[in-house]
């Protein structure tokens, strides 16, 4: 299991297109991938390959998220997803 935290910095948070992009990227990996709102102590990790679950977290700009992956390509999955969030999804 590989786990990394990062902060969402694009204006719209993980909504709309950024959320779609995130799920598409997560689905590209074999490993099971989860995401969690790390600012909420009780925040549960949800399947990062599910758009509905991801949206249900309501992650806004400035939220610290924790991405965890478990499987053969867990390292690559986490790196790629963190890089995507850090890129700001092409938003200003």
């Amino acid at each position, binding site marked *: 299991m590989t786990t990394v935290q990062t902060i969402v910095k694009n204006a719209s948070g993980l909504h*709309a297109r950024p959320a779609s992009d995130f799920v598409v990227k997560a689905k590209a990996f074999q490993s099971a991938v989860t995401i969690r709102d790390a600012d909420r102590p009780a925040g549960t990790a949800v*399947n990062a390959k599910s*758009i509905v679950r991801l949206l249900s977290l*309501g992650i806004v700009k400035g939220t610290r998220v924790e991405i965890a992956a478990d499987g053969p390509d867990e390292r690559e999955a986490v790196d790629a997803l963190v890089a995507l969030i850090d890129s700001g999804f092409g938003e200003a």
Partner: protein
Amino acid sequence: MRIFKGQSVSPGVAAGRVYQYKAFVRSVYETYVQPGEEQAALAAYLEAVRAVDAELVKIAGSFYSQDRDKAKIFEAHREILADDEMDGDIRRAILQDRQAADFAVDRVCTEYAALLGRVPDANIAARAADIRDVRNRLLRVLHGEKEHNLSQLPDHSVVVAHDLLPSDTATIDRGSVAAIVTEVGGATSHSAILARAFGIPAVLGVPDVTKALSDGEEVIVDALCGEVLAEPDGETVASRREKQAAYLAERQEDRRYLTLPAVTKDGTTVEIGLNIGSETGWPEDESFTFVGLFRTEFLYMERDTLPSEEEQTAAYRRVLERAKGRQVTLRTLDVGGDKTLPALPLPKEENPFLGSRALRLCLNYRDLFLTQLRAALRASVYGSLQIMFPMVGSLEDIRAGKAAVEEAKAQLAGKGVSFDPDIPIGIMVEIPSIAMLADEAAKECDFASAGTNDLCQYLFAADRMNPLTNEYYRTFSPAMFRILSAVFDAFRRANKPVSVCGEMAGNPEAALVLLGLGLRKFSMNASAIPAVKRALRGITLLEAETLASAVCAADTEAAVLECIRSVAAGRAERR
């Protein structure tokens, strides 16, 4: 020839063929399959997913070149259809719990829709509707029904339905729809608003019309007088066609007036305001000078939770920023009566329009009211905002509303949050009792705006949603103009601003009389602006005042309409 009468909610005349439309009715029972039949049930589900995906690809593709935003809606539906978790839950429900495919789809999708509906962010909560849409598609395919939506219609279709859902109207094939006719719904229904926005002629509230008209039959829809004509004779076809051409020419002419200043022929300047529900869909900046009615209900509708203070503050701020310094009048939550909220179950009332609605309801649900007032106050630092209470009937009401504002201010001040301490507080004049007390009311509030739709309903004791009382609801009665005149005079004496934000302000004929009665602030929907400006620019103040005196001295609605017509005729002669 057969004639059916209804309410004209979006003007125009059109001829076309009847396209009978029945929305899919979802009915699912809790059913399980026999042991050993799980794989067959799973196969049925997977086949339905494939079929639905193909439908979505096709619809998205058809919109892609003309309307990217609409195409994106269907792309989003494909994502939901392929959702890892939802799909997994449905498969498990079928294979492990032996649920029938339709039952599994219905239960799982409904659960996920509720999950999203609970997210405080309104944009996300609204996605619950997308899940329900996908669910209905899957169920429809599983039940072996063909796709029916309005996104691809034969040319010149007159859509005839019992009622239309928001998703039906949003995706309607605008190039091919000639007109809309429904059995239910009024001027303020969703279908009506959309028809007006798209410029589609619509006659709603035509009893039993789905039974009376057959599919493919040729009809004329005259949404200028609220008539649907079946089996029209040649003469009728020709005369309605002329009417349509004349109407279109008039609208074309009106459009030139949108951005011109609203000034009478002799130089009296009138302020034209805009009625809005959000920061989108506004006309050009030059076409209006203030926002006379910001309806806040939309923030509360079609969702399972009430909007938070943060969310409301952000929404009000967006409107104020869009207004670019122009004054915005925010009307506090106006629900009850015909408008209900899923997030706030209300007790059923015998007479909802005479019941606990608008300000009355807000005073009953004090936390809800204070949350909105705090949000409005917090947003007030981003522009020129004023607060207006709907359904005010007495001085007691005004005082109770103002006390709530003071309480909200104290709560914010206690937390050190900044707001405009002198935010103007005003009232809607829509209950006759407050019109009778206009002098006293003008002393206790900063401004007033007449809501003529409800004022007319309460003045005449005629339900404006009831087709049976339509003829008793007399907007052009001298009684309406006399009561409005008294309100205008009272506020002028108190040196306080007064406006009209109801339908009358957006009606070019009524607007001339209101001008003559002393009104200088008219607020209306964007689509009404050109015709009103055109009317105001074509008259002198003296002419308008003469007309207003004649109207107030008249005895019946017919007499008032006669006065207005003679002025119009006189002006036409001098052109």
